[in-house]
């Protein structure tokens, strides 16, 4: 019984059918490698469940048995009541969306993640401090309670903000997922009804028209020339015929089963393919449902930026906690009360934690995500924005991503010559010689011996974009002739078709007989196209320069050379021939009978060859070159034939012009493949067959040793193996995919990229990013944005961290030197969450300093977002200078009000005593407690203004890390100036607008104090320019190593 129940993973069998014909009977053996790999993906019990459910023998049953099994009637369909019962039993026919984290959990995660814990600790310390105060003095001031509440509020607000941002970006995606509800035509109660396909149940009889999606797994009862596109299931876009016959033991291969979410195509042999079938599986029990649940078994990897931010949070939290504890101990040993020490601790924590930073990072990432969406990269997961930037290997699909996904005429051969046709997106530039009379004949054959037609009503659509009824090759020929000759339909009308033999796989040719529009000779013209060797067999002459010449050995040889050459380019080659039927034998009234074949099909005149390929997108070669200079390895993974794959790889530069594979070298040197030194080869083409037999070490070796790799004839599942191989190389791997079977690989990859046009929903669900135009070049722009955001995040973080020192120093000085507190906790929050927010976001708009696509991708574990030089330079250089500047403003205010710096030292204790209301200043004046407090607030405001002014300088210097600001352009990034303006305006509002609100502890500050720190700000700028100058002058020097962040 088990041999009849194949593993689900052999789904892609059909795709590789033609190369492994020999072992067709043994499906299990062929996909051994795959199976083993995928088995790891799920738990054992899952596997058994799958097997049981896949015990599908409906394809072997006769119609009667089926009716019996599902209690239905093929003519009458189910009764509505029975259908309703089944619907209640089985649930709707839709895939259960992947399990979502409950919203409340997501929200709570935001509340405790990152710095939130530290701030909560601060808040609780505040309340504890109040508790201690209250127990000794019932009238203790509520300040600490308020501060605790403010801290809690800060956490909650930033949490809500982050949650909102995340929800917003998820919404983009879910709107994407919502598609127009699918309808299905079903027979119920012996009536044809259209119902939403979600309501389908097993036993329903459905009709599917060409172009429709198959609404569930169905057993075909009758079909007219139906072919299905199983690409969403297997990744293989070759159409598969479907009929009611039972052709294979394997339910996945037999012709009489169509799978949910695959598409029924309009087949060329019948105008509209239709299928009548019985629903045998719905919803999650369909094949696609199984695969979708498989994808959810692959864990989500943590994104690099998440790791970086975690790393950064650890650093900052580590600094905060260790300084906090250190000074707690110092405070206690300086005989401060525990209560005071706790309050110091709170201040230190609040000063050290960049409260607004994580929100800023989120905003920055979502700004970039928006920018990327404009460039056709829709990012589902915000953090994926940066992941793309650190990508070091891209595993790309071929069809549709690297190529245009349509057959296009690439070469022509006539008059013993190969001509190149324009394969660019619009075909505008056909330069080959069209004067030859042979071309006239050839073009006539191309035009007439073709069944493809434009869909009506597309007069204004450019030719290349018109929709066509017909298969890929015929479409290519139709468009080719339409571009060169003009109105093809008109030509066909003038040369009426009188008889036709359509293409079939036994004949391998297509033939039609036409009346001609030649007014002189009313002869019939027979035109034929097909496999070149077949066509040549039927010919006895060949047309050269419009003249018929006998087909001799030498011309046959040139034909073969041309045929081999074009075939070697990976192109699909067709031969064309014609014959004018003599008017005397075939008069105008002659009746052609295609079954009797009452006309000659030999001794024709060979006219030419034409080869087609799915050409690369014109933007791709550039993009690949860019990737290469950006140090990103591009690996092509395709289900296509190795020759075609290699040809495309060469034409887009994935295999560069001068590199050779082992086989190439063997061929050139005329030696056996085994004798070639593998080190000589730069490129490798590996087929799925070879991959299957490889151990992971061998795969690692290939991935490590070859710069240019093409995987051909691979199944979507093998993609997963390749991705894992790449990840073993410590690479950040981006993978493109469209089929359902790609979803495990997409999930496994560091960044999974689904195709927006060709991609299946399952692939889009599993991916981190959706490529709206399916274009490889868009990935490269994405990479560029990702790298830019990494750089800019560095700048943002450096900017934000700097002022932490300026906020922290006051507390340290307060504890050690005993100055009246220079800056309040609330004031710090106003800097972190007020004035600094917009400027730090503005840095996200900064342009790249140099060509970021010319450097290697960052090393995951070495090039950190927050590295030692960044922290040291921000904290110990600029931060310290800022602190000095702010202290200068503080001392100025106190001194000008009467307290000279030397008086302030160790004044703290007296200063803070509530009952001391006659504290003497340096001039003999006496101050009440409240007067001192007001002066203290003025000091806060002064310190705040000092930091603010210097943060403007900090913002300007952070625009670049290496270049001079003047190289970068001071005014190029306008948003920076918006940021500076906002900073100043918020500062002014706080000081002059809210100066009278006691709780905020701001006061109206004299205008001149705004300028006290300006020299320090200028100094910061000058110092940083010097730093950058030395970095530029002495790259690699001690200075560069220690000062470049």
């Amino acid at each position, binding site marked *: 019984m088990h041999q009849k129940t194949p593993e689900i993973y052999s789904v892609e069998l059909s795709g590789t059918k033609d190369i492994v014909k020999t072992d067709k009977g043994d499906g299990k053996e062929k996909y051994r490698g795959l199976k083993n790999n995928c088995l790891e993906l799920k738990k054992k019990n899952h596997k058994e469940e799958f097997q049981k459910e896949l015990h599908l023998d409906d394809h072997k049953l006769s119609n009667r048995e089926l009716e019996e099994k599902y209690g239905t009637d093929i003519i009458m369909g189910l009764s509505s009541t029975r259908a309703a019962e089944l619907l209640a039993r089985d649930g709707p026919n839709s895939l259960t969306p992947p399990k979502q984290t409950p919203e409340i959990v997501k929200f709570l995660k935001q509340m405790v993640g990152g710095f939130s814990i530290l701030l909560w600790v601060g808040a609780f310390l505040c309340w504890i401090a109040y508790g201690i105060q209250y127990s000794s003095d019932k009238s203790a001031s509520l300040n600490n309670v308020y501060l605790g509440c403010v801290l809690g509020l800060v956490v909650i607000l930033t949490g809500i903000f982050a949650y909102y941002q995340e929800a917003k970006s998820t919404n983009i995606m879910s709107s994407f997922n919502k598609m127009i509800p699918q309808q299905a035509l079903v027979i119920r109660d012996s009536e044809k009804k259209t119902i939403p396909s979600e309501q389908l149940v097993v036993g329903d009889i459905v009709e599917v028209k060409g172009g429709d999606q198959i609404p569930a797994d169905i057993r075909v009862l009758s079909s007219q020339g139906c072919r299905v596109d199983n690409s969403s299931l297997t990744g293989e876009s070759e159409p598969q015929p479907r009929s009611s016959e039972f052709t294979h033991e394997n339910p996945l291969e037999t012709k009489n089963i169509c799978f949910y979410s695959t598409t029924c195509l309009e087949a060329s042999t019948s105008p509209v393919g239709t299928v009548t079938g019985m629903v045998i599986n719905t919803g999650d029990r369909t094949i696609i449902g199984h695969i979708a649940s498989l994808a959810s078994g692959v864990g989500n990897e943590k994104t690099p930026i998440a790791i970086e931010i975690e790393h950064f949070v650890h650093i900052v939290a580590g600094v905060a906690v260790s300084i906090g504890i250190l000074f707690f101990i110092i405070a206690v040993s300086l005989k401060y009360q525990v209560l005071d020490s706790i309050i110091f601790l709170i201040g230190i924590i609040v000063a050290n934690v960049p409260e607004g930073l994580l929100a800023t990072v989120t905003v920055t990432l979502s700004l970039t995500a928006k920018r990327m969406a404009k460039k056709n990269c829709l990012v589902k997961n915000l953090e994926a924005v940066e992941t793309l930037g650190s990508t070091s290997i891209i595993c790309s699909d071929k069809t549709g991503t690297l190529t245009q996904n349509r057959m296009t005429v690439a070469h022509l051969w006539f008059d013993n010559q190969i001509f190149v046709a324009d394969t660019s997106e619009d075909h505008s530039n056909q330069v080959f010689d069209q004067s030859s009379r042979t071309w006239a004949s050839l073009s006539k054959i191309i035009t007439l011996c073709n069944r493809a037609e434009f869909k009506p009503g597309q007069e204004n659509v450019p030719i290349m974009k018109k929709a066509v009824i017909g298969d890929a090759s015929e479409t290519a020929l139709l468009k080719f002739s339409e571009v060169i000759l003009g109105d093809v339909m008109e030509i066909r009308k003038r040369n009426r078709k009188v008889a036709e033999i359509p293409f079939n796989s036994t004949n391998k040719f297509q033939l039609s007989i036409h009346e001609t529009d030649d007014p002189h000779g009313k002869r019939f013209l027979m035109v034929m196209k097909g496999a070149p060797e077949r066509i040549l067999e039927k010919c006895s002459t060949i047309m050269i320069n419009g003249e018929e010449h006998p087909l001799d050995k030498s011309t046959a040889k040139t034909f073969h050379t041309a045929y081999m050459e074009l075939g070697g380019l990976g192109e699909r080659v067709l031969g064309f021939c014609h014959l004018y039927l003599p008017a005397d034998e075939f008069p105008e009234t002659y009746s052609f009978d295609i079954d009797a074949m009452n006309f000659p099909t030999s001794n024709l005149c060979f006219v030419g060859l034409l080869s087609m390929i799915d050409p690369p997108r014109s933007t791709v070669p550039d993009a690949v070159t860019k990737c290469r200079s950006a140090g990103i390895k591009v690996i092509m993974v395709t289900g296509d034939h190795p020759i075609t794959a290699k040809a495309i790889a060469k034409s887009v530069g994935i295999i560069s012009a001068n590199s050779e594979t082992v086989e190439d070298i063997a061929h050139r040197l005329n030696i056996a493949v085994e004798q070639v030194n593998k080190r000589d080869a730069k490129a490798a083409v590996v087929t799925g067959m070879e991959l299957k037999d490889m151990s992971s070490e061998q795969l690692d070796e290939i991935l490590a040793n070859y710069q240019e790799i093409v995987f051909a004839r691979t199944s979507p599942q093998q993609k997963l193996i390749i991705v894992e191989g790449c990840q073993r190389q410590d690479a950040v791997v981006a993978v493109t995919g469209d089929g359902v079977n790609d979803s495990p690989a997409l999930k496994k990859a560091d960044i999974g990229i689904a195709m927006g046009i060709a991609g299946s929903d399952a692939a889009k669900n599993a991916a981190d990013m959706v490529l709206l135009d399916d274009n490889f070049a868009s990935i490269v722009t994405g990479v560029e944005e990702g790298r830019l955001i990494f750089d800019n995040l560095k700048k943002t973080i450096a900017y934000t961290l700097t002022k932490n020192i300026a906020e922290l120093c006051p507390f340290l000085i307060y504890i050690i030197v005993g100055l009246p507190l220079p800056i309040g906790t609330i004031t710090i929050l106003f800097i972190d969450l007020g004035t600094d927010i917009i400027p730090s976001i503005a840095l996200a708009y900064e342009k790249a300093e140099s060509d970021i696509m010319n450097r290697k991708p960052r090393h995951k574990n070495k090039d950190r977002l927050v590295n030692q030089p960044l922290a040291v330079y921000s904290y110990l250089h600029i931060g310290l200078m800022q602190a000095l500047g702010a202290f200068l403003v503080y001392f100025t205010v106190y*001194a000008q009000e009467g307290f000279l*710096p030397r008086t302030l030292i160790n004044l703290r204790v007296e200063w803070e005593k509530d009952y001391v209301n006659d504290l003497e200043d340096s001039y003999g004046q*006496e101050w009440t407690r*409240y007067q001192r407090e007001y002066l203290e607030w003025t000091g806060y405001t002064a310190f705040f203004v000092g930091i603010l002014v210097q943060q403007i300088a900090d913002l300007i210097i952070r625009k670049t890390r290496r270049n001079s600001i003047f190289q970068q352009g001071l005014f190029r990034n306008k948003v920076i100036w918006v940021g500076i303006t906002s900073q100043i305006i918020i500062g002014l509002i706080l000081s002059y607008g809210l100066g009278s609100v006691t709780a905020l502890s701001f006061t109206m500050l004299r205008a001149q104090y705004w300028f006290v720190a300006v020299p320090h700000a200028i100094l910061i700028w000058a110092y940083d320019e010097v730093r950058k100058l030395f970095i530029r002058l002495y790259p690699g020097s001690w200075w560069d190593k220690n000062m470049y962040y």
Partner: protein
Amino acid sequence: MTKNEEKSLNQSLAEWKLFTYNPTTGEFLGRTAKSWGLILLFYLVFYGFLAALFSFTMWVMLQTLNDEVPKYRDQIPSPGLMVFPKPVTALEYTFSRSDPTSYAGYIEDLKKFLKPYTLEEQKNLTVCPDGALFEQKGPVYVACQFPISLLQACSGMNDPDFGYSQGNPCILVKMNRIIGLKPEGVPRIDCVSKNEDIPNVAVYPHNGMIDLKYFPYYGKKLHVGYLQPLVAVQVSFAPNNTGKEVTVECKIDGSANLKSQDDRDKFLGRVMFKITARA
């Protein structure tokens, strides 16, 4: 699982060891001796420069100041009131007339406070005309005498116990010094008891008058020997009234520019204190 953890623990220990001292590269804490030397030298120079710069800017800032008068006096437009003896934790005095140790500290404090007001100390001071502001042009500024006898029973001249031994404790009230302050009108300090059963609050000098001749004040440096005018408050506890407490509020009155009603500053032009007389 545990095996892995152990291994990683060992590994990280080894990594730490290597980080602390790496014998192959001679690196100590991730840097070679030369690198450490360079770093230390750099920071020495850099921080030296910063320190010098900060000192310089501070010096420049101090040059903008006047030695005699602060640049701005906007934050103390009006004086606060303060009481003596100096309170220890809050404005509360507790004493027992029968227990001299309970008020010895207060008397000590008062004596100390009144030391500059002794005749001996005041003999070099000027006798100024009463009832008018005593404005001076300098360059030498003289201070006016404050005859301590004005405080009468609280002067300490006749009663070295300042009334505490009799159950009539004295509290001195003083107005904060503010440079250049010129009270308008006729300022006086008005003290009232908040307890109705002990309304007996005596104020010296008579009516709590503050003579204008002590204003304006010209600052510590110019106005050497300046004495603030004082007002004494004497609360009389009747002998049978032991174990009672009384709250007294003193306010500046009679001057338009000396505020005594501020919502936030409870000591601006006023002061409130509590005296408890135990048995």
